[in-house]
C-alpha cells in the first residue's frame, strides 16, 4: 500500500506500536498462546509428521517419491479417491439442506402444537446422541440383503442399500444435526428487526429469506457444508459397515494397514486425504470468511415474531415430519433389534444379546468409555472456545498456525490419527525412550503416556476440537468487536474479557461444544480402534466388532445401552447448565 501523506503512516506505525504494547502487557494471552502452540504441535502435528513422512521415505530412510507414484497408479486408490470426493459433495449438500430446514422451523416457524416443535428438536438431536454407525446398522436391518422390509415383507433378494445410496442416507442423517445446531445458533443471533424492515418495505417471505436471512447465514452455511464435507470423507465406521463395495479413502487406508500390511501406501493415501481436506479448509478460510458479517451488535435483540402463514408452515412441517418419522423409526429399531434371536431368520424374543455384551466385555468398557469422555469433554469445549476467541478477536504471529492445526485434526481420519499416536508415543517423543534402559525412561520422554487412558483422552480432545472451534468461530464472528473493546478500554485483561463478555455471549456454542465433544468421544471408534488395550476398553469397539461379525443383536444391545448413557448424560448436563450457567447470573444482574 502506498502512503500518500506522512501522517497516516505515522498513525499506522503508532497504532502498531500500541498493539505490540498491548500484547506484551497481556501475560494471560501470551501464556495461552504458548500452551496452545505446545499442545497442538505435540499432539497433532508431531504424530502426523511421524506417520506421513513415511510416504516420502524409502525403506533405507532416504527421501523418495516412489511410494507416491506407486499410489497414484494404484487402481484401488484412484477409485477410493473419487468415491470419497463424490460422497463428500453429495452429503455436504444434503446435510446442509436438511439442517437448514430444521433450524428454520425451530427458530422462525410457529408450529401448531408444542409437541411437534419438541419432536423436531428431539429428532434433530437424536443423531447427535448415538454412535454414528447405529444408523447403518438399522438401515441394514430394514433394507439389507436379509432386511425386514426388503426380504421379510417383499421377499426381495437385493443388496441395493450397501454402497453409495446407503452411505448418503446414513451420513446425511448422522451429520445434519451439526448443521442444524450451527444454523440454530446463527439464526437466533440474527436481529429480527433487520428482516422486519425488509418485510415492512414490501418484501415477501421468500424474498426476505433469500436476500436478508440467507446472505447473513452465508458464512455459517459455508461452514456447515465444509464441516459435513470433511466429516463425510473422514468417516470410517459407516463406509465400513454399510459401504459395501463403495470404497472410500478412510476404509482403504485401514485395509492397507491391517489387511495388506502395506503401510507405505497407507501413509501416502493418508497424505492425499489430508491434502484434500486441507484444500477444502483453505478454500473456506480465504474465500468464505471475507464475507463474514457482524449481526450481533450488543443491543438486546427483541423476540422474533414467529411465522404463522399456512403456506409456509404446512409444507415445512410435512417435510420435516417425514424426515422425523424416518429417523425415529431407525432409532427405535435399535432397542427392538436387540431383543430378537437372529434378525432376518428367527424372530423369537430373547435377552441373550445383553448377556453376551456383558460376558464378552463386561461393565468396564462402559465405565471406561464414560470416564474418558467425561474428562475430555470440558477440556475440549474450553480449549475450542479459547482457540476460537484467540483466532477471531486477537492478533498475534502464530494465529494462523493455531487455527490451521486445530482444524486439521478434523481432516485426519481417525484410523490414521490412531496409528500416528501409536507411532508417535509408543517409545516416547521422537523415540527417545529407546535410548534409556527398558522401564527407566524419564518422565519427559512421555513414554508413560502410551497405553494409558490419558492418551485416549488426548485423541478425544484432538478429534472434537475442530468442531467446537469451528462453531465457536462462527458464533464469535457475529459478536461486534466493539463490545469487547469497550471492556478492554475499561481496563479488563484478556482473561476477564473472555470470561465475562465473550463466554456468556457464546454460551450456546459452548454448551453445544460440551455436548458434541462428549458424544463424539464416547462414540468414537476409528481413532481408538488400535489404541484400545486391556487397560482401556471402549464400548464402541465392541459394537463395531459385533456388527462386523454379523451379531446384529449384540451390536444393537450394546448400542442401546450406550444411547441411554449418552442421553442421560446430556439431560444431566442441560440441567446443570440451566442452573449454574453464566447467563443466569447475567439475567439476575439485569
Amino acid at each position: 500500500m502506498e502512503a500518500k501523506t506522512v501522517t497516516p503512516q505515522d498513525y499506522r506505525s503508532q497504532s502498531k506500536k500500541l498493539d505490540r504494547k498491548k500484547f506484551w502487557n497481556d501475560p494471560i494471552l501470551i501464556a495461552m498462546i504458548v500452551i496452545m502452540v505446545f499442545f497442538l504441535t505435540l499432539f497433532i502435528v508431531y504424530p502426523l509428521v511421524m506417520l506421513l513422512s513415511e510416504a516420502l521415505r524409502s525403506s533405507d530412510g532416504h527421501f523418495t517419491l516412489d511410494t507416491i507414484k506407486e499410489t497414484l497408479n494404484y487402481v484401488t486408490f484412484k477409485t477410493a479417491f473419487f468415491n470419497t470426493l463424490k460422497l463428500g459433495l453429495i452429503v455436504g449438500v444434503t446435510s446442509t439442506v436438511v439442517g437448514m430446514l430444521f433450524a428454520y422451523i425451530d427458530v422462525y416457524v410457529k408450529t401448531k402444537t408444542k409437541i411437534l416443535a419438541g419432536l423436531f428438536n428431539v429428532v434433530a438431536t437424536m443423531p447427535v446422541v448415538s454412535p454414528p454407525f447405529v444408523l447403518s446398522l438399522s438401515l441394514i436391518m430394514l433394507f439389507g440383503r436379509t432386511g425386514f422390509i426388503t426380504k421379510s415383507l417383499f421377499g426381495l433378494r437385493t443388496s441395493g442399500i450397501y454402497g453409495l445410496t446407503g452411505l448418503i442416507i446414513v451420513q446425511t442423517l448422522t451429520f445434519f444435526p451439526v448443521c442444524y445446531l450451527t444454523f440454530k445458533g446463527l439464526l437466533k443471533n440474527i436481529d429480527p428487526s433487520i428482516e422486519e424492515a425488509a418485510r415492512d418495505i414490501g418484501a415477501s417471505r421468500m424474498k426476505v429469506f433469500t436476500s436478508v436471512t440467507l446472505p447473513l447465514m452465508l458464512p455459517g452455511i459455508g461452514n456447515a457444508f465444509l464441516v459435513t464435507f470433511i466429516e463425510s470423507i473422514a468417516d470410517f465406521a459407516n463406509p465400513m459397515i454399510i459401504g459395501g463395495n463403495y470404497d472410500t479413502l478412510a476404509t482403504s487406508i485401514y485395509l492397507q494397514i491391517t489387511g495388506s500390511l502395506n503401510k507405505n501406501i497407507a501413509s501416502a493415501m493418508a497424505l492425499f486425504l489430508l491434502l484434500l481436506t486441507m484444500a477444502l479448509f483453505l478454500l473456506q478460510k480465504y474465500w468464505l470468511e471475507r464475507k463474514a458479517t457482524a449481526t450481533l451488535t450488543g443491543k438486546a435483540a427483541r423476540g422474533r415474531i414467529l411465522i404463522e402463514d399456512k403456506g409456509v408452515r404446512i409444507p415445512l412441517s410435512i417435510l420435516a415430519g417425514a424426515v422425523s418419522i424416518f429417523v425415529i423409526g431407525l432409532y427405535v429399531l435399535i432397542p427392538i433389534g436387540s431383543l430378537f434371536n437372529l434378525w432376518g431368520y428367527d424372530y423369537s424374543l430373547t435377552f441373550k444379546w445383553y448377556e453376551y455384551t456383558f460376558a464378552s466385555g463386561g461393565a468396564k468398557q462402559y465405565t471406561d468409555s464414560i470416564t474418558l469422555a467425561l474428562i475430555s469433554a470440558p477440556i475440549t469445549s474450553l480449549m475450542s472456545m479459547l482457540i476460537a476467541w484467540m483466532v477471531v478477536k486477537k492478533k498475534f504471529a502464530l494465529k494462523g498456525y493455531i487455527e490451521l492445526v486445530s482444524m486439521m485434526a478434523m481432516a485426519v481420519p481417525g484410523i490414521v490419527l490412531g496409528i500416528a499416536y501409536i507411532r508417535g508415543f509408543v517409545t516416547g517423543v521422537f523415540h527417545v525412550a529407546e535410548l534409556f534402559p527398558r522401564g527407566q525412561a524419564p518422565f519427559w520422554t512421555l513414554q508413560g503416556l502410551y497405553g494409558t487412558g490419558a492418551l485416549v483422552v488426548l485423541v478425544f480432545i484432538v478429534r472434537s476440537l475442530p468442531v467446537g472451534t469451528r462453531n465457536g468461530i462462527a458464533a464469535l464472528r457475529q459478536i461486534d468487536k466493539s463490545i469487547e473493546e469497550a471492556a478492554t478500554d475499561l481496563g479488563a485483561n484478556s482473561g476477564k474479557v473472555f470470561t465475562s463478555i465473550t463466554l456468556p455471549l457464546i454460551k450456546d456454542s459452548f454448551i453445544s461444544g460440551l455436548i458434541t465433544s462428549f458424544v463424539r468421544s464416547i462414540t468414537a471408534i476409528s481413532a481408538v480402534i488400535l489404541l484400545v488395550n486391556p487397560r482401556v476398553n471402549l464400548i464402541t469397539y465392541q459394537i463395531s466388532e459385533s456388527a462386523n461379525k454379523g451379531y446384529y443383536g449384540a451390536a444393537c444391545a450394546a448400542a442401546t445401552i450406550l444411547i441411554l448413557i449418552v442421553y442421560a448424560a446430556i439431560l444431566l448436563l442441560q440441567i446443570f447448565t440451566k442452573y449454574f450457567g453464566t447467563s443466569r447470573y447475567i439475567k439476575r444482574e439485569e
Partner: protein
Amino acid sequence: MKKIFAIVLAVIMIFGAVACSSKPAGNEPANNAAVSSDTPWLTVDGKCACGKCSVDMSKYSPYIQQLIYEAHKNGETLTVYGACDESYVKAAGEKFEELFQIPAEETRYATGELFTKTEEEKNNPQADVWFGGSNDYYFKAKDAGLLQAYKPENEKNLIPNPAFIDKDYEWVGIYTGVLGIMFNMDEGKELGLEAPKTWAELADPKWTDKDGNKLIALPNPETSATATNFLATQKYRLGYPDNLDSAALEKYLKDFDKNVTQYTKSGSGPSKMVGPGECVVGISFLHDGVAQIANGYKNIQLIVPEDGTGFEVGAAAIVKNDKNPNAAKLFIEFCLTADCVNMGKDYQSMQNLVITDEAGAIQPELLKEYGIDDLSKLNLVPYDVSDVAPKLKEWTQEWLSYVGDDERHQKKS
C-alpha cells in the same frame, strides 16, 4: 480467570497422569514361611513359596511350580492380545487368573490389527502373549521378529504333527479347523440344487441361477487368510508342489469366479451369509459354520470337499521383549492344557482341538455331529504352511490376474 486456570490445571493433570502411571514395584518374597531345601520354590508343606497365594501347587509339575513362584515373586501380571472370539479371549484370561492367581488383562483384535499393533509396539511391547488367530499371521510375526521362542513342557500334550507347533518354537498350536463348504439347504431346495460334494463342482455354471444371480461367497484373498488357504488348497488339489496343472488351475479359478457374488473382507464373512440366505454356498473354515449353527441357523449344511481340503492352525505365542516372562511362559503352558482349550466350545469357538484326548481334551460335540471331529479321517491336502506362507502374496497376484478386479471384490466386512 478460573477457566484459564482450569485449563492449565487440566494440562498439568494430563502430565500428572503420565508421571503416576509407572508400575508399582514387585512384591518381595515372603521370608516367614519355611522353604523346602531341594525345592526352594515350595514351602515345606507344599505351598508356593511366595507365601501370599493359595495356588494348589500339587497339581503342577516342578517346572510349572517354579514358573508360578517366579511370577508371584516378581509381582508379574499378564496382558493378552487375542484374535479369536472376544468372549473366549476374556474367558481364557479369567481362567488363567483364577488358576494361577496372576492378574490378567485381555483385549481382542482382528488378526490384522493384532499384527499391526504389536509391530508398532515392537520397541515398547504392551502385550505379553498372543492368543488365537490363524498361524498365517504368526508366520508373518515370526518373520518380523515379533515373537519370542519358547519350548513348552506341555508340548507333550499336543497331537504329534509338525503342523501344530513352530519348528523354532515361536508359536504353539491350540486349535485347528478345516476349510470347507457351507450350504443353505432351504435356498438349495427352492432353487432345486443338491449340496456340492467337491471343490471341482463349484466351477459348474449351475451356481449362477437362471436370473443371473451368483450364489457363492468367498473371502477376498487380498485381505483374508481363509481365502489364501482356499487358493493354496486348489493348488494342492491340482498337483502342487510336484506336478501342478497350471492350465487346469487357471480354468478352475476363472470358472469358479463367474459364480461368486461377493468376496468378503473377513474370513468368516461367508459363514455369516449362508444362514440368512445372503448366499447359497459359502466358503470358510467349517468351525465358523458350526458356530452359526449353534447360534440357531439350522438350515446350514457343512461339507468337507471330497477332493481334499486345507486347514488352518490357531496359535498362541509370547511377544518378544515382554515384561512378564514367567507369566507369559506359564500362559503358553496353560494354552496347551485341557483347562484352556476345552473352554472354546462355550465361547463361540468350535474348532478342532490339537491337544490329545489323553491330556483331557474334549472335542466339541457339534463337530462330532457333523463328522469333522477327527481330522485324520478327512481327506486333507498336504498343506505345509512354512512352504506356502511366503508364496501367498504371489499366488494372490496370480489369482487377481485371472479374475480381474471388479466391484465384487469387497474389501470390507
